[in-house]
């Protein structure tokens, strides 16, 4: 992140949102709303004095998943790039009650600007890489596991934060009371994944991070750790070896998906069918960790529409070809990388990010794009402006010209499928080399050939 922040050719726009994308490969115009941080980025040095002085503490629902607190002026996390804080206007005392301004008083460079407003930027780019990541499955949706009901049921991300030395518990793994160390811990795999009721797909990363959590929580607390899994999926370099190491560390692996968790006798009782024993068992533990899966971003559909790409049945962005072209999309010049395309771990995401960047670089190096020869063309005299072709085009290659009320084919995007030609009710769209005249002539020729054939 630091490298990206420092690179002279990279402009980082954080706390910003893409509002509109128009144009095509080589000629995109992107409208970006840069949200008001209430901090002048030019003046701020990232010293952090404002954060220290801010009197308002707010529960940090994002980075510390509700376990820790942050200030009303804050950086999302210590290593955030750029290191410029933002004022949370919903919680800032000045915005709530009209007075405080301690941050402004103590800021050594006068960077605090309470009157800052959102700014709209228009940038011209040749290619776009969409790497919007994923959302974490909400464990509350599986009520039988009791997350949110039983205090000592945690999600994997909560434990992840507890394990961090600079985290809310300073690296101690404790129960919800903040003091008691657990003596036994259950880690439940596939929460929200591989489940027809939630997500049918495998989230891919949970097996490995669950093993990592088992290793770390055992190291911190000495607790007995149970892992409840359906299948242990440890494909990848050195991953299986890590699994073997955990077996040597006496982690108890139970093959079965727990049916429910109940609070019994001051403990959490995990009910599960042990598939190796072939019978129901009950495992009482102090703490349960739910290995929550990955799911597409809640706004993936809207983002897809914005960039002219599509989502698959599960909601991940759809690639051009799952095996042969996994970073390109059907829209030329728009690439996808990382978990936005599907669940994957860090090495895969890094590789895919580099692949997408390389694809873009090859476009830049070429300086030109190969266009399809057989493209569609709109006869503006015939077009009635119904807009049906705009909707049918799989490549969003047809734009509607508002001033003339006619459709227009962007030749750089058209792949020549002719769906628009088949759709147009007024016969205004012609697909070059497959015009109605040509097809009818071909059909007549074929017909007369058959008359001869039958006569013989």
């Amino acid at each position, binding site marked *: 992140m630091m490298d990206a922040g420092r690179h002279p050719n990279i402009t980082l726009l954080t706390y910003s949102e893409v509002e509109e994308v128009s144009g095509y490969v080589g000629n995109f115009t992107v409208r970006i709303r840069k949200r008001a941080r209430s901090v002048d980025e030019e003046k701020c040095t990232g010293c952090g004095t404002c954060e220290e002085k801010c009197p308002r503490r707010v529960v940090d629902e994002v980075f510390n998943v509700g376990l820790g607190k942050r200030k009303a002026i804050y950086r999302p996390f210590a290593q955030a790039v750029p290191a410029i804080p933002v004022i949370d206007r919903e919680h800032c005392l000045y915005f709530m009650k009209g007075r405080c301004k301690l941050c402004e008083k103590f800021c050594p460079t006068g960077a605090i600007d309470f009157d800052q407003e959102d700014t709209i930027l228009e940038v011209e780019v040749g290619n776009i890489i969409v790497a919007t990541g994923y959302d974490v499955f909400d464990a509350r949706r599986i009520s039988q596991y009791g997350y949110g009901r039983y205090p000592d049921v945690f999600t994997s991300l909560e434990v992840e934060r507890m394990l961090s030395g600079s985290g809310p518990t300073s690296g101690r793994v404790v129960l919800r009371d903040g003091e008691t160390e657990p003596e036994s811990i259950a880690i439940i795999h596939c929460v929200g994944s591989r489940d027809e009721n939630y997500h049918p797909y495998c989230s891919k990363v949970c097996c490995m991070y669950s093993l990592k959590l088992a290793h770390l929580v055992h190291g911190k607390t000495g607790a007995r750790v149970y892992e409840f899994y359906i299948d242990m999926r440890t494909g990848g370099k050195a991953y299986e070896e890590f699994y073997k190491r955990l077996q040597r560390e006496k982690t108890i692996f139970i093959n079965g998906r727990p049916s429910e968790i109940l609070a019994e006798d001051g403990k959490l009782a995990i009910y599960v069918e042990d598939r190796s024993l072939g019978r129901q068992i009950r495992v009482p533990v102090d703490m349960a960790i739910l290995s929550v899966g990955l799911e597409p971003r809640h706004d993936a559909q809207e983002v897809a529409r914005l960039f002219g790409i599509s989502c698959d049945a599960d909601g991940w962005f759809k690639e051009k070809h799952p095996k042969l072209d996994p970073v390109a999309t059907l829209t030329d010049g728009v690439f996808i990388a990382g978990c936005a395309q599907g669940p994957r771990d860090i090495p895969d995401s890094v590789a895919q990010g580099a692949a997408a960047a390389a694809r873009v670089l090859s476009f830049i190096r070429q300086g030109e794009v190969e266009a399809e020869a057989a493209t569609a063309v709109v006869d503006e005299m015939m077009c009635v402006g119904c807009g049906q072709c705009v909707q049918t085009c799989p*490549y969003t290659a047809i734009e509607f010209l508002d001033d003339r009320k006619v459709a227009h084919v962007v030749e750089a995007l058209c792949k020549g*499928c*002719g769906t628009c030609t*088949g*759709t147009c009710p007024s016969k205004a769209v012609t697909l070059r080399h497959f015009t109605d005249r040509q097809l009818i002539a071909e059909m007549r020729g074929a*017909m007369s050939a058959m008359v001869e054939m*039958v006569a013989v």
Partner: protein
Amino acid sequence: MTSETYEPKIIGFLCNWCSYAGADLAGASRLKYPPNLKIIRVPCSGRVSPELVIRTFQEGADGVMVLGCHIGDCHYSTGNHRTARRMPVLKALLAFTGIEPERFLFKWVAASEGGLFAETVQEFTETLRRLPPMQEALEG
């Protein structure tokens, strides 16, 4: 031409990527199918407009078939979704124009389905043989 010597004339609109390749495979595999079919290659089954099908009947074809990729396999991602919505409507409306709906066939044939292609043509030709020639209907 008497009906005993009647050989139906079939025009097939085949998508370039799946069905046309499927027909190719049928040929390469030396599969037999009736010579009554003449193929017109289109980039995508979505290119075929209902008017084009009607026009083909008008020109005297006894049967028309539109073959495309299976849903999800379209080279153009969603071109055949349009076919899937358009062609059943056309088939339902054919009777209204006085053309027997059985004269029109719309089906998904993949590039690997040479056998299915040959079978489809075989069956379709048999169906058409049972119907009077289109020419009679046009003249009568």
